[in-house]
Structure formats: C-alpha cells, structure tokens
C-alpha cells in the first residue's frame, strides 16, 4: 500500500524575468519499509521534488496524495499539521536551534504548536539519543557538539515523533566518511525496523549501497527508477 503518491507533479519558478520549469511532470509512489534515494546533479530538481513530497512547497501542476487523500491544495496550517503528525525531516545541515539543549531540540516538534512533551515522550527521546550514542549530550548546547553528533541529534529529532515518512536532504553532505556511513546505517535500519518510508535526496555515492530503490533525476525529469542491489 502506498502512503504517499505524486501524480503528474511539476513545479515552475518565476525568476523575476520568466517562468522556469524546474520539475517536469513526475509520478511516483512510495511504500513503507524501503529506503529510496533520489539522486542527481545539483539543480536537477531533486530538492524541489522532496519539498513537494514534504508539503512545504505546492506543485504548479499535478496532485499529491497522502494515504489516498488529496493534499495538493491544503492550507498552510493543515500542511503544518500533516508535517507535525506524519513527517520527520533530516536536513543537509543539522539546523539545531542554538539556545536550546540537545533534548529541547529533539523535543522541538512537540512544542512547535504549543504542546508540552509528556514524560513518556521525554523518555523515548532520551532512549533514541542513547541509541544514537548521544546519551551524555542531553543537556549540552548544539554549539559544543561535533558535526556528526549534530546530525545524529537532528535524526533523533526526526525519529522521536515516530513518523511515517522520513525525508532526508543530503544528510551526509556535511559529514566525513565515517559519520556519513553511521547516519545512513541508522536511516536504513529505521526504514526496515519501523516500516517507514525513508526518502534520501543525495548526489553522494556513499549513500547508494543503502538504497532499496534509486530514482535518478536530471534536468527536472526522472531518468530512471530502479530497485536493485547497489552495493
């Protein structure tokens, strides 16, 4: 069963002089339990596609379905509610908020709409941090963490909500080889163990061995969509 589906989805941007099409109509379905890598050169439209899937960008054409519900033209607030409930995000930069502790950052989504994280959620957050090797950083400020640690905190922030979909934009780009592999192993395990849809946008070849499915984009068009062993 597919949870998220994009159907003939395209995106145009206006650059001040003319309308430019950055994503030509694409149709893709994503199913839980697999790690999908969307790969392609810079400017190929992969981040635009990820933004549309993540409901942070509206398509110029086509439809997006979430669990067979048309979410193409939902309001900003409804999109925010969807993201809060069902999505987890790992960005190219960890994007942790300075001034908040590691634990505060992990629990950020629970407070984003004014709620308070329960003790159970806090316990879960601490367990996730522990699993990611960050148990002794709970009360530390992001500034005192290494790049790899920060990225793992951002993964914990995405995992703590137990999202159905995990969207990762170049999660290894700012990491060294060792940390990059650690992060990809965590994401892969999350897709399998938690039956999540994990979509990784990257042009880093190090991520390919972890892909269950590889979608290649060039010039705003999908040039291949394959399921094979990339090791």
């Amino acid at each position, binding site marked *: 069963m597919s949870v998220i589906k994009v159907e003939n989805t395209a995106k145009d941007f206006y650059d001040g002089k003319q309308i430019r099409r950055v994503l030509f109509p694409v149709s893709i379905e994503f199913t839980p339990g697999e790690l999908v890598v969307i790969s392609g050169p810079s400017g190929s439209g992969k*981040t635009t596609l990820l933004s549309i899937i*993540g409901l*942070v960008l509206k398509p110029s054409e086509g439809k997006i379905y979430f669990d067979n519900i048309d979410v193409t033209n939902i309001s900003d607030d409804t999109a*925010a509610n969807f993201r809060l409930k069902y999505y987890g995000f790992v960005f190219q930069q960890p*994007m942790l*908020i300075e001034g908040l502790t590691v634990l505060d950052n992990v629990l950020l989504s629970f*407070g*984003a709409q004014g709620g308070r994280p329960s003790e159970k959620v806090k316990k879960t957050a601490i367990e996730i941090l522990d699993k990611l090797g960050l148990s002794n950083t709970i009360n530390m400020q992001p500034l005192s963490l290494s790049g790899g640690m920060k990225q793992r905190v951002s993964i914990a922030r995405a995992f703590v909500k137990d999202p159905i979909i995990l969207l990762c934009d170049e999660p290894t780009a700012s990491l060294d080889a060792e940390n990059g592999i650690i992060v990809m192993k965590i994401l892969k395990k999350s897709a399998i163990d938690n039956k999540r849809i994990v979509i990784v946008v990257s042009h880093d070849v190090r991520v390919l061995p972890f892909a269950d499915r590889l979608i290649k984009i060039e010039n705003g068009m999908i040039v291949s969509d394959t399921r094979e062993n990339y090791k």
Partner: protein
Amino acid sequence: MRILIALKMAIHDRSTTTGALIGVIVIVFLVGQQLSVFFGLLNLTSVLPDHSNAEVWVMSKNIRNADSGNLVSGSYIDRIIGIKGVEWVEPVLIGSGVFKRDDGSFEPVRLIGLRRPSLHGGPWNFYQRGEQVLLDLESVVIDRLDLSKLGHPLLDEVREIGGKRVKVAGIAEGARGFQGTLVFATLEKVKEISKTPAGRYSAILVKLSNEADKNKIIGNMKEILPNCSVFSSQELSNLTRKYYITNTGIGGSFFFSTSIAILTGVVIVTLTMYTSVLSRARDFAVIRAIGGRKRDIMIIVISEVFFITAIGIFIGFMLLSTLFNYTVKSEIPSYFPAYIAPLLAFVTIFVSFLGSLAAIRVALKADPAQVFH
C-alpha cells in the same frame, strides 16, 4: 513550550536581548523622568490652591489662573460667612517684592499674606519651626530649597523685602511656586510692602463644613458675588495647570522630549529585534518545517518581546525609583503620581510591540521550504 523556546532563545541571544532591553529601559526611564519633571512643575503652578486647606476660592472676575487677578473687596467675607455650611472664611493677599540678599543683591519674591491668628492658606509643611512663627508681624517663612537663592538667611536673621524689615522666622518644606520664590508673611506685612489699598485682597478662601453641599454653596456664592470668580480648589488648580501647560513651554517641551524618548526607544527595539529575527530566520523556518504554524512563530516572537519588555520595565522602574530617591528633596521638581506607573508600563509594552512589528513580519515570512536549500 513556545514561550519556553522564546525565553531560551532570548537568553541565548544575549547581545540582541541586551540591545532590546536598553531600548525598553530608555523608554521607561526617559519618559518616566520627563513625566516626573512635568508633574513636578505642574505641582508648582498650582501649589497654593492645592495646599490651602480651603474648598472654595473667591477671586476677581474672569481670572485665567490662580496667580493672576485683581483685588477683591474684603466686604465679600461678611457675605460669604453668612452662607449656611461655611466653616471659615479667610482672605489672602498676594503681592511681590524684592528680597535683599546678604551680599546686597536682590531676588524678586512672591509674597503671600495671611491673616492672623488663623493663618489659613499658609505653609503646610515645615522644615524648621512651625506656622505659629507667623503670628509675629515681622516674621516671614521661606522654603528650604529657596535658601540659596535668598543668600542663605539664618533663622531669626533680619532682612529686607521691598525696603521693609522682615525676620526669617521659619523654614518651610515643599512650598515653592512656579512664578517665583514664595515668601509667606502676615497680611499686614504684605500690605505694607506691596502698598495695596486697605480692605482689598487677592483671594478669599472658604472652608465648608463636612456635611455641606459643596456644589450648592458654590452656586449660591456665584449668585451673591456676581463680580467675582468662584472656584472649588480643584477647579482653580486645574484651570491654573491648564493655563501654564498651554501658555508656557511646559506642555510643548514635555511633548517634544517625551516623543524623542519614545522614538529613541522604539528605534532601538525595532533595529535589535529586526536584526535578531533576521539572524534566526533559519530557526523559524525549521520550526515551520517540522510542523509549526505561522501563529506559533508569532507567539514565539511576541513572547520574546514580552519577556524583554517586562524585564526592561522592571529595570527602568528600579532606575526611576533610584532617581526619585535622589531628587525628591532636591531643587529639581519631581513628582510621579502612582496612577502613571501602570500607564507608563502599558505604553512601553505597546511601543515595544510597535517596534517589533517589523521583526514579527520577517519571522512570519520564514519559509519552511528554505530548510531544503
């Protein structure tokens, strides 16, 4: 949680928080200080009606303030005393003269003549000795803060006003006028110095009994004294204050300096909050991406502004109270009515939010898609 996030962000971003705090403190302190001087000066303008202990003032027709006016006939005293509900009626003679200082120079003074032995309308608070010193024909009472202006006369020292001998017999506290240095003396002495005709006075003060209907009696007095102005003390005080606000530089100067203080504070708050939000646009985009709505971002920014404003108001009032403690007995006219404090706090909160509008606008523009670039 949003408030906690705002609080932690504000604490972390120390330079911005300090900058915005300074803006808020500037508003509270400068406006508060201006207000205190303004009200201090206003108190000086209406010092006589405010402290006369009389409920009604009878003065000449068509007066514009308590300091102007012609002399009125003393025969009105007999007419007023006959009105039911009147407890006492006392004349006051206001004149002018020049006080001879110890170095031979002169200082113009405003003389307030009081009828013995009641001495109503006289000094209400004494620094040294008491009002009974004015029972002596030669005695005068001057204010503590005017001593230096008058050449530091000692108690019981004999000086001259308008070439007439007077004895500085008492020192008052807080009996200062707006139009000049006040010197309290007996009616006879003021009449002698000012050379006013016999049986004529500047004002007639009327005290009513507790059960008297003030408005009714004032109405009666207006009927039987058609050639006079009859005011309650409060009306005369208000009239005098209004006169000086509109006819001197007090009002304009206060309005200008207060506006500059508010503007300075608003500019500081605007710039610091704007810069702060601009530098944290990415954080707001992250919050939006992970499920925060625009209103959540607004709550975070507003909470931060409120937090900074509350602390700024607290520090501002602490500084103000320190200033007032130092100036309360100084020559700087300073008075801060209690009802002004919440008003000033409210205005400060309002202008702080006004100064934060640009920042809020920037924060609301935080695009969740931005986190993917």
